[in-house]
C-alpha cells in the first residue's frame, strides 16, 4: 500500500534529467506525443481553489499580522495602516488573556487526548480479541458519535449536565447523594473533555482497529502456540506494531484540540463558567469581530497555524523514522 513515506520521496528521488529522458523514451516507444497539458488540466480546479481559499487567505493573514493602525497628526489625525514588524505578535503572545486561554486549552487537552486515545486503543484491542461477542454492535455504537456534529453533541451533554435536566443528578439523588455541578469552574474541564472523548473515541478506534486487522496473523501465531496470554500478545506485539497508527491518531487529536471552538461556544450558552475568551480560538474570534483587533487576531491565527504545522511535521518525522526502522 502506498503511504506518506512512499508517495513524495519516490517522486523527489527522480532527478529532472532522467525524468526528461524517460519521457522522451516513452514517447518514442508509444510512437505518439504524450500530452503534457493533460495532468495540469486535471489539476487545474484543485490548484485554483487551493490558491484562492488556502494560499491567498494565509498570505493575507500574514500581511495583516505585520500592519497596524497608527494615528498621526495629533488629536484630529488620520488613522493609517503602517508596517509595525512583529509588534502584533509580541503584544498578542504576551497578552495575559491569550496565555490564560492556552493554559485552559492545555488542561482540557491533558484530560481529553490521553483518555480518547487510551479508550480507542482498549476498544480496538478488545474488538480484535477472539471470543468476544457483540463486536459488530459495539463497533457501530461506539463509532456512531462521529456522525453527530460537535454542536449537537454539546447540546445533548449540556442538558445532561444541567442541574434541572440531568439524569446523573437524578440518579445521585435517588441514592441519597447531593447534586454534582458539572458546569462549575472546576468541573467544566472534565465536562468539556467528556464531550470531546465521546465524539472522537469511535473514529480513533476504527483507525486503530483497521490497522490491527492489517497485521498478518502469522506474526502472533508463534506466541500463541507458546501459550502466551492475550494481554502479553497485545502489549508486546500488537501495541508496538500499532505505533504508527497511534501517532497518527495522536496527530489528529492534537489538531482537533487546538481547534476546539464549537463545543465550548455551545456549552457557554448553558454555563457561566465559560468566558468569551475561554479557548485561544474563541479569543481570536472575539478580537477579530468583537473588539476589531484584526491585526492581533491575524497574528494569533498565523501562530496557531505555524504551531500546528510544527507539531504535524515533528510527529510525521517520528512516524517516518519508525517506519524506516521497521522496514530494516
Amino acid at each position: 500500500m502506498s503511504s506518506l513515506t512512499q508517495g513524495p520521496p519516490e517522486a523527489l528521488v527522480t532527478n529532472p534529467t532522467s525524468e526528461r529522458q524517460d519521457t522522451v523514451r516513452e514517447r518514442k516507444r508509444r510512437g505518439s506525443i504524450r500530452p503534457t497539458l493533460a495532468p495540469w488540466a486535471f489539476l487545474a480546479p484543485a490548484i485554483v481553489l487551493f490558491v484562492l481559499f488556502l494560499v491567498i487567505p494565509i498570505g493575507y493573514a500574514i500581511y495583516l499580522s505585520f500592519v497596524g493602525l497608527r494615528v498621526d497628526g495629533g488629536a484630529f489625525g488620520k488613522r493609517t495602516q503602517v508596517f509595525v514588524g512583529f509588534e502584533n505578535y509580541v503584544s498578542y503572545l504576551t497578552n495575559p488573556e491569550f496565555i490564560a486561554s492556552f493554559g485552559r486549552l492545555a488542561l482540557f487537552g491533558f484530560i481529553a487526548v490521553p483518555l480518547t486515545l487510551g479508550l480507542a486503543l482498549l476498544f480496538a484491542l478488545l474488538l480484535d480479541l477472539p471470543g468476544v461477542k457483540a463486536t459488530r454492535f459495539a463497533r457501530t455504537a461506539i463509532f456512531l458519535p462521529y456522525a453527530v456534529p460537535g454542536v449537537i453533541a454539546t447540546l445533548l451533554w449540556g442538558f445532561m449536565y444541567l442541574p434541572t435536566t440531568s439524569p446523573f443528578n437524578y440518579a445521585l439523588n435517588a441514592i441519597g447523594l447531593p447534586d454534582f455541578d458539572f458546569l462549575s469552574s472546576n468541573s467544566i474541564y472534565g465536562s468539556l473533555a467528556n464531550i470531546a472523548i465521546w465524539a472522537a473515541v469511535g473514529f480513533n478506534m476504527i483507525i486503530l482497529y483497521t490497522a490491527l486487522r492489517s497485521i498478518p496473523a502469522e506474526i502472533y501465531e508463534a506466541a500463541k502456540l507458546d501459550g502466551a496470554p492475550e494481554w502479553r500478545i497485545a502489549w508486546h506485539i500488537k501495541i508496538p506494531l500499532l505505533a504508527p497508527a497511534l501517532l497518527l491518531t495522536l496527530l489528529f487529536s492534537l489538531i482537533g484540540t487546538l481547534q476546539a471552538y464549537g463545543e465550548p461556544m455551545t456549552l457557554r450558552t448553558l454555563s457561566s463558567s465559560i468566558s468569551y475568551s475561554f479557548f485561544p480560538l474563541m479569543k481570536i474570534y472575539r478580537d477579530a469581530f468583537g473588539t476589531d483587533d484584526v491585526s492581533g487576531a491575524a497574528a494569533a491565527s498565523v501562530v496557531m497555524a505555524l504551531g500546528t504545522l510544527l507539531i504535524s511535521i515533528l510527529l510525521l518525522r517520528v512516524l517516518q523514522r519508525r517506519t524506516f526502522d521497521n522496514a530494516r
Partner: protein
Amino acid sequence: MSVLAPDRRRTRTRIVPTIVLLLGALYTLIPIIWVISASTKTSGELFTTFSFLPGTGFIDNIIDLSTFNNGQYWLWGLNSLIYAGGGALISTLVSASAGYALARFQFRGRALIFTILLAGVLLPQITLAIPQYFLMTNLGLANTYWSVLLPSIINPFGIYLACIYAQGSVPEETIEAARIDGASEFRVFRSLALPMMLPGLVTVFMLQFIGIWNNFLLPFIMLSDESMFPLTTGLYLLLNRGTGTPVLYTLAITGALISIIPLVAMMLFLQRYWRLDLLSGSLKG
C-alpha cells in the same frame, strides 16, 4: 487463524472483554437515548420528570418546531443539505481529478505539488476561517451561500486519498490500452478511471459530507442572515436564545434529534461501502 486453533480456550466467549465493550457502547448511546426520550417531553415535563421516561409532547414538539419562524428549522435542514451535499459532491470530483493526475501522470512539478498539498493537509482548516472571511468580504461574497460552499470544496486530504486510491485501483496498462485505442485523456478519466476509483470516492464523499455537515465555525463566521444558516449554527442560535425562553430548549432538543437522524442513517447504510482502512493504511507506511 481459527483453523490453527484447536484448543477450546480460544473459541470460548470472553465475558469481561465483552462487558467492557458493551459498557463503551452504553456510554456512546446514553446521549442518544436521552435525546429520544427528552424530545417526547413538553417543556414542563422536561424539567420535572425523570430523564429517561417518555413524555407526552412529541407530536406537539414536532409541530412547534415545524412552525417556528415559519418553518425556519426545515430551511436550515435544506441549507445543510445544500452545503454538505453540493460541497461534498464537487469536492469529490475535484479531488478525484487531481488525485488521478498525481497518481497516473509523470510530469514536472508533480513532486512540488505533492509537497504543497501535504502541507495543506496538515494546516488546520479552522485557523483559515477568519482570513477566508476577509477574502470573502473583499470579493463581496460574505453572507452568501458561496461563502460557505466554496471554501468547503478544496480538501487536500481528499485529494491525497483519491491519489492513493487511483494508484491502487487504476492499472497503468488499462490506461495505456485506451490511449492506444485513441481515447482522449478526459475520456480515459471519465469512462475508465472514475468508475474504478468509485469505492474509494464514496469514502472521500462521506468524510467530506460529514465534515461540512458538522462544521460550525465557517458558517458561524461567514453568515449573518439566519435564513442561510445550516442546522449547526441554527440550533446554536436556538440554544443561545433559550437562556431567556426555556420553551426554545424543547425546540432545540427536538431539532437536535431530527438533525442527527439522516446522518446516522446514512452512516449505518453506507457502512459497508466505507473504506476506512484506506485512511489508516494510507498513512501507516
